[in-house]
């Protein structure tokens, strides 16, 4: 261990820009302690005593990619339910509430069985079953103390209480004054053990509103859903994280509880903790509370590998909104040896006013307001897309965007990038690493992320080593591998005004190169 630290320090001295070395990065390292409990939960703690506060980030290594068939949106629904309390929080009488909730599930199962009948549905019976389900919900509702979990967190000084779900993971976070560490441990371990599915079907309506807001009522939301459904066929990235409307209308609290049982196990979770925390005090508390989580093995994930794309795919959305251009190319997951090469490509194409796409499309040709290329779309745990997008200026078409982006791609494939460009990427990556150390919240997220994804939080720093090894030849090689016509999916918003309804087949889409 000691030896390793010395090696790492040496690496920093060599690889990192001078001021970083002068600041003694090894001292940052000495602030970190890691503990893996016997049940498999890993906690990474970064001591940062600047102020008596702390932030945490709980990362569950399961996201919407794990949504069961016909139950899209379930991972995200479970995230919402983690705010609904436990047997100890959010109820006036759990002993009475528990059977009441079981009755809701029975009533719902009966209703749902009738509702989804394709043949022979009895409307009268359906109405009765619906009424029975609603009555059961009302009966259970009597015991609810709404949002008590949030109340407790916030009244004890918690801020930034939130969570998110994406394709790859589900995460929970907030910050508290450091004297509330034990309360945090009690609350967080409790909801990671015993979430109660109370008010589930009302919360499902809330999530439907979220879908309307994020996807249905937003032009780019509409486009991206169609785009991903086209770019991916087998890989779970083809389905929306928020869920399809019919699945949201169908899955049950029992389904969410099953998802929880399978994926919310300590061996599938990492917690990043950053702040004014002494590991000698904190770890015993963490062990006491989180040690209660059952020792269940990390779920094994079968996974369908996306078949190689061998055709150009295209989605054209006829929409009242202004035009927008998006295209994506399949690339391997974040574990690919070339991962940092993709980051270099993204940086050189998109980072700031010196980037190639900005200078070409925005500054020189003046056809776009914005243009960029980036990895990690829509996730990066599995094979995913390196995507490009551009926002045309008024009077310019998505076809022009495509043409101009392809010119830049062609340059990457046929000519090496300059030494300055490559060096800029490396310098900025290192500086961004330093900047990323500044906030407790962001740091807690990074520790949890790297620990989950690489089995070692130190990859946060080792990443720099991979960045340093990227060569100009790597960029050209990877560009040639990935940016192939038959590996491309195009998504376009084509403006359709009320007065210019095109007839059938009038949609021209984007002319292909």
């Amino acid at each position, binding site marked *: 261990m000691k030896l390793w630290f010395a090696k790492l320090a040496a690496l920093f001295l060599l690889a990192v820009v001078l001021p970083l070395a002068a600041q003694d990065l090894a001292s940052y390292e000495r602030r970190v302690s890691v503990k893996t409990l016997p049940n498999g939960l890993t906690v990474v703690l970064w001591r940062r005593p600047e102020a008596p506060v702390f932030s945490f980030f709980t990362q569950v290594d399961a996201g919407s990619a794990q949504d069961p068939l016909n139950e899209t949106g379930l991972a995200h629904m479970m995230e919402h339910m983690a705010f609904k309390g436990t*047997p100890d929080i959010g109820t006036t009488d759990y002993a009475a509430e528990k059977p009441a909730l079981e009755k809701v599930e029975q009533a719902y199962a009966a209703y749902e069985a009738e509702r989804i009948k394709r043949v022979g549905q009895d409307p009268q019976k359906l109405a009765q079953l619906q009424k029975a389900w609603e009555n059961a919900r009302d009966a259970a509702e009597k015991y609810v103390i709404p949002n008590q979990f949030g109340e407790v967190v916030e*009244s004890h000084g918690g801020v930034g209480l939130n969570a*998110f779900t994406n394709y790859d993971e589900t995460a929970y976070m907030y910050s508290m004054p450091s004297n509330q560490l034990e309360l945090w441990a009690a609350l967080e371990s409790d909801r990671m053990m015993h979430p109660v599915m109370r008010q589930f079907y009302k919360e*499902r309506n809330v999530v439907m509103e979220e879908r309307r807001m994020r996807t249905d009522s937003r032009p780019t939301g509409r486009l991206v859903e169609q785009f991903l459904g086209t770019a991916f066929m087998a890989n779970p990235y083809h389905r929306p994280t928020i869920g399809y409307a019919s699945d949201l209308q169908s899955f049950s609290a029992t389904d969410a509880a099953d998802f929880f049982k399978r994926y919310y196990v300590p061996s599938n979770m990492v917690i990043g903790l950053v702040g004014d925390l002494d590991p000698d005090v904190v770890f015993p508390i963490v062990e006491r509370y989180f040690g209660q989580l059952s020792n269940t093995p990390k779920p094994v994930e079968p996974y369908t590998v996306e078949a190689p794309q061998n055709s150009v795919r295209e989605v054209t959305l006829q929409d009242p909104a202004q035009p927008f251009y998006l295209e994506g190319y399949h690339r391997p997951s974040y574990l690919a040896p070339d991962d940092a090469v993709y980051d270099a490509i993204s940086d050189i194409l998109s980072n700031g006013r010196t980037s190639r796409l900005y200078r070409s499309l925005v500054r020189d040709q003046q056809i776009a*307001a914005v243009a960029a290329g980036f990895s990690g*779309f829509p996730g990066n745990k599995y094979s995913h897309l390196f995507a490009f997008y551009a*926002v045309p200026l008024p009077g310019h078409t998505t076809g022009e965007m495509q043409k101009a982006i392809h010119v830049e791609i062609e340059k990457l494939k046929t000519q090496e990038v300059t030494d300055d460009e490559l060096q800029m990427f490396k310098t900025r990556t290192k500086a961004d690493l330093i900047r990323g150390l500044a906030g407790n919240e962001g740091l807690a997220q990074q520790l949890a*992320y790297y620990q989950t994804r690489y089995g070692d939080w130190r990859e946060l720093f080792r990443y720099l080593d991979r960045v340093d090894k990227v060569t100009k030849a790597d960029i050209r090689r990877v560009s040639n591998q990935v940016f192939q016509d038959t590996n491309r999916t195009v998504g376009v918003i084509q403006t359709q005004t009320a007065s210019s309804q095109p007839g059938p087949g009038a949609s021209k889409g984007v002319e292909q190169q």
Partner: protein
Amino acid sequence: MSTRSDIFLTAVILSERGESKDPYSRLGCHPEPAWRANAPSICHPERSARSGFLSRLFCGTGGRAAEGSAVSSCGNEGAHLQARRNRSHHLSSRGDFSPRGICFSRLSSLVLVSLFCLLLISTLGSAQQITPWNQIQAPPLPAFTPPEPTRVQLANGLVIFLQPDLELPLINATARIRGGAISEPASKAGLTDLYGEVWRTGGTKTKTGDQMDDFLEAHAAKIETDNESDSTSISLDCLKNDFDAVFAMYLDLLHNPEFRDDKLQLAKAQMYTGIARRNDDVGSIVHRESLVIAFGKDNPYSRIAQYSSVAKVTRQDLVNWHRQYVYPNNIVFGITGDFDPKDMEAKLRPAFDSWQKGPAAQQPDIKFTEPKPGIYFVRKTDVNQSSINLLDLGIERSNPDYYAVTVMNEVFGGGFSSRLFNKLRSEKGLAYDVGGGVGSGWDHPGLTNFEMQTKSATTVEGIQGLDDEIDDLLKNPATPAELKRAKDDILNSFIFRFDTPEKVLHEKMAYEFYHYPLDFLEHYRTEVEKVTSDDVARVAHKYVHKDKLAVLVVGNDTEFGKALSSLGPVQDVDITIPPPPPGLMGEGGQGGPQ
């Protein structure tokens, strides 16, 4: 990998001015928390707090929009007691014999309880001692004195705040300059947007903006200019070893901007894009029209740029603006990072000392009149959800009622356990996004806004739901438990107002800029502590007028369950974008968006 394009995108596509223009700005609601930009991405490289558009575009499904600065509670004694009473039930029903169950006997003494637990644990041979959450005794918070910046005022009037922060080898600085969009001529609305962009991109007398880009990006440094409703700013952000070179460039841009015309044309084209797209997004429409309804169409705070007003702005306008406002006596300068304050002061003084005073920026005299009550409807046919906003003029932060209003807002519309969140989201399942409160501005009335988004079919139900809660607020302002929860929430999280040197610096700079006492934050805490239930009742009646609220609805009325007109006369709001003057966009003289 962090790019500026997200910033352009937000600025251009949404065509919104800085957040400060929205006097009641709700916190939270980032679909994804901001975090470091260069990690192999969970989502995509653009992840700054300003990348709302993109994160919404590309990210997964973000969290629970916990709006507002949060309310909260725990003081609800009834709930507590009942929860405790039921603990043993639930444990037995789980068949789970844990020490916790024993701990929760009716023993009144905590000491005895914990002793009992200890005994029990040793008997069971388990190392687990769990305290029920509501019996955990938090140790006192360690004493903490936030690092105070040093304030220096030069003879020419420039105010400097020096705030050392030695943790990381970085330096950040910002100069905030009086005079912003509210001072621009109405016929040239958008002038300061262009100024805020072209000041930087247009370069200096001796260096083009592109040359600056090359230098700065190679050093992973930034110099940026920006604009808000009442100010403009110029900032730098660099590794400390690059500070001298970056600061020299910063001074050059501060004193010798060139506003090159090619960059003005580029900035204009981007603004035209934003104008063309400003009706694509519901949020953009709501933001804009709320201000127009609450503040009046001719109020400088609600003015928006049009093709024609942007087209009128010339390079000379930008030069003139700079000449009119950028003087040391109009500037508050703050710097934080890895430096010794004495050394830094010795660098800054000679850099600024010889700068001559100029005319003081004049605060425009702005009349605020109350909005005309009624129902205002914006038809948007490509949505299946309505955005509802109940609007009024708010108050100024210097108002003595500010503290009681803050507490009232916490009770009513902020955070995870506010009445609006509990009722309209959790109990009725009507909305994902619901909240609001009486807004407060530093030097002008804020925007009072109670808002929600609900499916088209429940639009009227949603409005009535908000109305009912407002009625209830006036009838039952705040129970003692609610009051305690709200105050606990504000006071216990108070440390997060000053837990980093940078936050302290920004607080002080704001007080200086708006002529508030520099100890305002301390004062705030004391005053919040004093707020009573009667105060909350009083301010609720004083500032929340149901009959005076203007109701803005953006939605698709072909899907409405009940017609809006069932609530009263409806006034259609026309958001048609005035077309550009002929020939404006070039490209064969064609006009507006294709």
